[in-house]
């Protein structure tokens, strides 16, 4: 089942000119798609279209997920500094009209699941970068979204934390099976996470190709050193390099 499509979408900004397109994307329910491409290729714009936060200048966006069924995780944790981790995670539910007590109970469960059960009362300033990102992830998951959009979510984290979070995200994905679109600069991360990797041209971004990554999801132990992983990383890197060469 298709849960969202971008059909020949183009986005023009008044100040910066054309940012995206024409660009097509079919998102199937429960799949993980990674989008890689150079800075300014319109990856974030494509995510905002999928989230319904922006409208295309031309083309068509179709979204099967309703309000509250789509979650977004940004590059920064984007937590409200004046709220505890618990209140931050409960916020989407409270905005959706859920009673405070129920919202907080579910938020506590979501924080538990990302390993922050001991930091419910902590303020964002008291959390490390990795912990804040986990709280941000919990806030995205607390509504049980059908579509989860991540805009370079781990870019600011160190390599170890980044891998941990990638694995945690895959574990959560197995439980709830949301469709995930994952924007990243990191080809290895893209290949590790996604069933297919969409490569984009420099802005205005178009689809330059797609790598289908073979192998089970979530990834078995040692996948990062397997031949399949290496091959997919190699192919994707070459395609990305070719796109950059053509642009230069």
């Amino acid at each position, binding site marked *: 089942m298709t849960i969202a499509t971008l059909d020949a979408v183009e986005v023009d900004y008044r100040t910066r000119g054309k940012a995206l397109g024409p660009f097509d994307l079919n998102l199937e329910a429960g799949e993980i798609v990674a989008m890689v491409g150079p800075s300014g290729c319109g990856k974030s714009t494509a995510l*905002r279209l999928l*989230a*319904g*936060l922006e409208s295309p200048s031309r083309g068509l966006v179709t979204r099967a997920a309703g*309000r*509250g069924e*789509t*979650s*977004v995780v*940004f590059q*920064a944790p*984007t937590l*409200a*500094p*004046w*709220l*505890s981790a618990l209140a931050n995670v409960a*916020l*989407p539910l409270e*905005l*959706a009209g859920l009673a405070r007590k129920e919202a907080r109970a579910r938020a506590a469960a979501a924080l538990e699941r990302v390993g922050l059960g001991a930091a419910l009362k*902590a*303020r*964002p*300033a*008291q959390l490390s970068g990795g912990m804040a990102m986990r709280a941000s992830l919990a806030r995205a998951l607390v509504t049980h979204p059908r579509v989860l959009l991540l805009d370079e979510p781990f870019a600011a984290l160190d390599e170890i934390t980044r891998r941990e979070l990638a694995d945690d995200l895959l574990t959560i994905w197995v439980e709830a099976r949301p469709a995930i679109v994952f924007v990243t600069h990191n080809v290895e991360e893209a290949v590790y996470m996604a069933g297919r990797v969409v490569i984009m041209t420099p802005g205005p971004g178009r689809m330059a190709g797609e790598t289908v990554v073979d192998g089970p999801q979530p990834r078995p132990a040692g996948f990062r050193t397997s031949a399949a992983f290496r091959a997919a990383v190699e192919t994707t890197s070459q395609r990305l390099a070719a796109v950059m060469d053509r642009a230069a």
Partner: protein
Amino acid sequence: MTRLLAPLALIGAILALWETIVRLTATPAYLLPAPSAIAQALAANALPLTVSAGRTLVMALRALALATVFAGTLAVAVSLSRTLDQAVRPLAVALQVTPVVAVAPLFVIWAGVEHPERAITALAAIVAFFPIFSGTARGLAAADPDLERLFDLYGAGPWRRLLRLRLPSAAPFVVEGFKVASGLAIIGAVVAEFVAGSGGAQGLAWRILEAGNRLETAKMFAAIFALAVMAAAVHLACQELERRALIWWRGR
């Protein structure tokens, strides 16, 4: 410790030099009284100076409260309507750039000669208005754009957005504006009392004027000293308020 001792040592050195020069050159007291003479004037007038400082303080604090209510309300209203924002901005700027001394006589007329303290409070409020208004308005517009997007995503209406996102985001800006305004309110109260030129309000500015007219220069210095102490106390109180507010806001 040096943080406390260094300025005290400097003040002591300046006072000692001052005392010595005044004594050696036999400067007349109406021109430059010695620190010892000022201290005597301060002790002799402790009660009236304290009462006057209290009057000025009350006027400044009332002005601050008035300015906070009006500036805060207007900033919130402006944040909800772009048209209102565009309409209000030039007026707010005009209010800010017009010197308080220029409009003071008008307010004295409006308040009536028997109520100079009303005119003084209103003028100090006008001076304190702008930093609170601009701080609050800036803070309300400074919410994290990604948090704004989240509120879009979850379909939050303008009131919820205001209460749960913009007002809490604005808090540090409001506190900063308030701190600036507190200093300006005291300046405003003093300047307004000077311009009002009547003893009706019995504030510190009047004590300075009165002593000046009688060429009691040591008493003038004593009143200025009282004013400086009062302003510094307000400044310190606001700094502490800001520190606590930020701890509350950020959680540490």
